[in-house]
């Protein structure tokens, strides 16, 4: 008996001995909520916005976005563009990695070749979108990585060669996939261990990793003293905490554990009536657009009138105000507003939400008219359609799907909607294989140009789940993507025309533009929120 106690006591002492009790850092560490775990901090492998944000506060690319999403210099001091728009020359400023090494043009050449050679999720930014010379061939293993159209004539000059002029090429540069990687440091590590611990990671931006383990629920970043713009950074560091439950987020904010949390629609609604918290409430534009995709291989949904009936039977105002409730806005265009601006006059591509009033909008009479046409054309009296949606990302989408079912069945007599909830991985899998009737899909812009949305519905695009196809649309988009519109006004007008085709034929039914409701503690200022690329930037944040 005594032995048992001794063993147990020894175990506890052993456990206690294994862990120091003092808190590292101290000082002005801003405690912030993360919605999910970081999946990777290697820019080559990142595909989710959470990982992007944590990495983006540690590493900088050639250019970055300012508070208003304008593209401004970061590691590149200046740049020149050749007459034909195919050669970009970036001049790097003097900057250092957190280990003291210089950031050089070779770091970019190394990182970019690596991305194309590995051909991961975001590699298509080099080939399909950025049109960097030979990127497509390298990704499909038809050319060697050294043939990539990027070179470093000297350590401070980076020359990028494109296959076609790309009007929005500069707006791609803040994206994580275009970040540099220190080749010497990377090569000194064991395979695939880069960025898995603070010791295997280098930063060149405002913060550096202080405490991180793969899958960690808490991550600490410390101010990077070697950052070229360290004078602008006022925080001592950031303390990220993964919180998956909205209730936890709210209580952790209320007791001061966290100073910035995201809350869901249900809580947002209650907080608006709560005087002590309402002043901390903000709605930020984070970039997703949620929309319905119709599978045109389905014999009924191939009928344009049925699709138009559905898009007119959705009451988006009610959907957003009574079900989503987090400050999201109803969507009546195929491109979300607030991220793509005309280069010359700053016009927001989608500011006018009424431009397609003819093709989309809540109008039960019109919807029933289209439905009658569809019934006559298809010779059917009833339609039974499945609706696929993700149920692993909070409860909002579940509520939206249920509301859609109620609205469509009430407004369209004879239409039955079968709800098909599943995980996001499964939904994407089924969508790619066209095993659906209607799918509730979402897209967050990758770069500041309407084509980040408008390429989605091009024939042959991997994300054109519904296999909708229109020759004129394909022509416009491929011309836009291959630089045939060197005149920017024509380019802009062509994109408007393309968007009109999507709406006229109801290839998709836009539902709402996702906004986020957050609670921000008093005295915390200077955090930048972005609709694309990094959701939150803490470089200029301060705590009073």
């Amino acid at each position, binding site marked *: *008996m005594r032995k048992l106690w001794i063993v*147990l006591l020894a*175990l*506890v002492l052993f*456990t*206690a001995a*294994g*862990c*120091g*009790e*003092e*808190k*590292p850092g101290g000082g002005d560490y801003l405690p912030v909520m993360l919605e999910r*775990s970081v*999946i*990777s*901090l*290697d820019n080559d*492998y990142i*595909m989710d916005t959470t990982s992007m944000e944590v990495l983006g506060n540690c590493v900088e690319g050639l250019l970055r976005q300012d508070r208003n999403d304008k593209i401004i210099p970061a590691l590149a001091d200046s740049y020149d563009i050749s007459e034909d728009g195919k050669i970009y020359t970036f001049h790097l400023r003097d900057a250092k990695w957190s280990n003291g090494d210089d950031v050089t043009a070779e770091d970019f050449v190394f990182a970019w070749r690596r991305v194309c050679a590995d*051909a*991961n*999720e*975001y*590699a*298509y930014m080099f080939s399909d979108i950025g049109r960097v010379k030979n990127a497509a061939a390298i*990704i*499909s*293993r038809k050319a060697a990585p050294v043939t990539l159209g990027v070179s470093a004539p000297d350590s401070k000059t980076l020359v990028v060669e494109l296959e076609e002029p790309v009007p929005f090429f500069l707006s791609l540069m803040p994206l994580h996939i275009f970040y540099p990687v220190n080749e010497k440091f990377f090569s000194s590590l064991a395979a*695939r*261990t880069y*960025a*898995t611990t603070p010791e295997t990671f280098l930063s060149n931006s405002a913060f550096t990793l202080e*405490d991180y*383990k*793969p*899958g*960690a*629920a*808490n991550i600490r970043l410390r101010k990077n003293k070697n950052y070229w713009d360290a004078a602008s950074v006022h925080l001592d560091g950031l303390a990220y905490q*993964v*919180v998956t*439950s909205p209730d*936890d987020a709210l*209580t*952790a904010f209320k*007791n*001061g*554990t966290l100073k910035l949390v995201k809350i869901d629609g249900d809580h947002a609604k209650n907080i608006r009536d709560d005087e002590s918290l309402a002043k901390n409430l903000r709605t930020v534009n984070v970039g997703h657009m949620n929309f319905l995709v119709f599978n045109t291989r389905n014999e009924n949904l191939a009928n344009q009138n049925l699709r138009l009936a559905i898009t007119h039977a959705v009451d988006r105002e009610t959907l957003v105000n009574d079900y989503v409730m987090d400050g999201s806005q109803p969507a009546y265009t195929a491109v979300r507003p607030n991220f793509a601006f005309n280069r010359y006059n700053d016009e927001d591509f989608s500011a006018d939400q009424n431009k397609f009033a003819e093709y989309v909008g809540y109008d039960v009479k019109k919807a029933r008219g289209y439905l009658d046409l569809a019934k006559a054309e298809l010779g059917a009296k009833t339609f039974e359609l499945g609706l696929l949606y993700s149920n*692993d990302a909070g409860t909002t989408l579940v509520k939206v799907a249920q509301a859609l079912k109620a609205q469509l069945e009430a407004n369209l007599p004879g239409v039955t909607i079968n709800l098909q909830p*599943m*995980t996001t*991985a*499964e939904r*994407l*899998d*089924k969508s*790619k294989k066209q095993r659906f009737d209607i799918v509730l899909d979402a897209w967050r812009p990758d770069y500041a140009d309407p084509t980040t949305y408008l390429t989605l519905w091009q024939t042959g695009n*991997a*994300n054109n789940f519904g296999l909708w196809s229109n020759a004129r649309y394909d022509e416009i988009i491929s011309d836009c993507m291959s630089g045939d519109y060197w005149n920017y006004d024509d380019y802009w007008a062509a994109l408007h025309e393309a968007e009109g085709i999507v709406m006229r034929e109801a290839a998709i039914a836009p539902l709402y533009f996702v906004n986020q409701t957050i609670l921000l503690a008093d005295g915390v200022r200077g955090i930048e929120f972005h609709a694309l690329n990094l959701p939150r930037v803490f470089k200029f944040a301060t705590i009073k």
Partner: protein
Amino acid sequence: MTKYIAKRILLAAVTLFVIIFVLFVLIRIMPGNPFPVERMSAEMILQKRAELGLDKPILVQFADYMRMLLSGNFGNGTSLYNGAPIKPILLACLENSFKIGVLSIFFGTAVGLLTGIVAALNRGKFLDGLCTVLSILGVCIPSYVFMIFLQYFFAYKIPFFPYFFDPSRFLFSSIMPALSLSLFTISTVARFTRNEMVEVLNSDYVKLAESKGLQGFELMRRHVLRNALIPVVTVIAPLVVDLLTGAMVMEKIYGVNGVGKLMVDAIAGEGVDYNYVLALGIVFSSLYIGVMLLLDILYGIIDPRIRLSAKEAA
């Protein structure tokens, strides 16, 4: 005896092999991809599948996997943490879960034993009733209710403990997680201890010891507890594995970077990470099988009848 042990070990190995095979096949026929596919073309996906060897026949894949496993390696992730080697990451998470698990076992057994002893010594009295009600409550209340309750009162209403687990203040911030996990252990151990002790207290040899003049603590230590605890230990063993392998809900609520959370990330991350799910499944099953094997062998040593009946059955 050697034959009995050898047979048990063989059986355990076969069980583990079957589990690995079933896991391996299930995870490959599960919907979803080992990598996210939102932005990849069909050709790129095929290329990635080929690189991971997923285009080979499933039995060939399984043979490859077993070969790697036998060399003491879990391979690399397929979608988590840029495909870094699994072993160090898994070990780090296991360490966190183990530490909290050990704390909760210690706490659970200590309080459970004490409650059981107090109840047994006061059989039929108020304290006995109270302990019984408490231990029934402990079994009935789902532990996550208790977790949320603790977090709400002792981290929010009275902000004494940290709201979330904080590895830099390990002991302090793991008190609430360990406590909430130990609730079930406390109740189970208390109930068993009480019942066994009541039985032993009524036995002839205890009465004899009492009549010889042995009293109080000495009687308890030498005669009652020793005999009452043997069945209790067999109840604790499987509970220990449960606690050590982490509790997914607890890790989610307190934000602990343990194996439970790793499992959730592996399944519900951007892509399903085949190798993490497999590695975790193998670790969990090995622990269970290991503990059961140990118990079987111990039973055999303690009680020769079990050994003999096994022989007769064979």
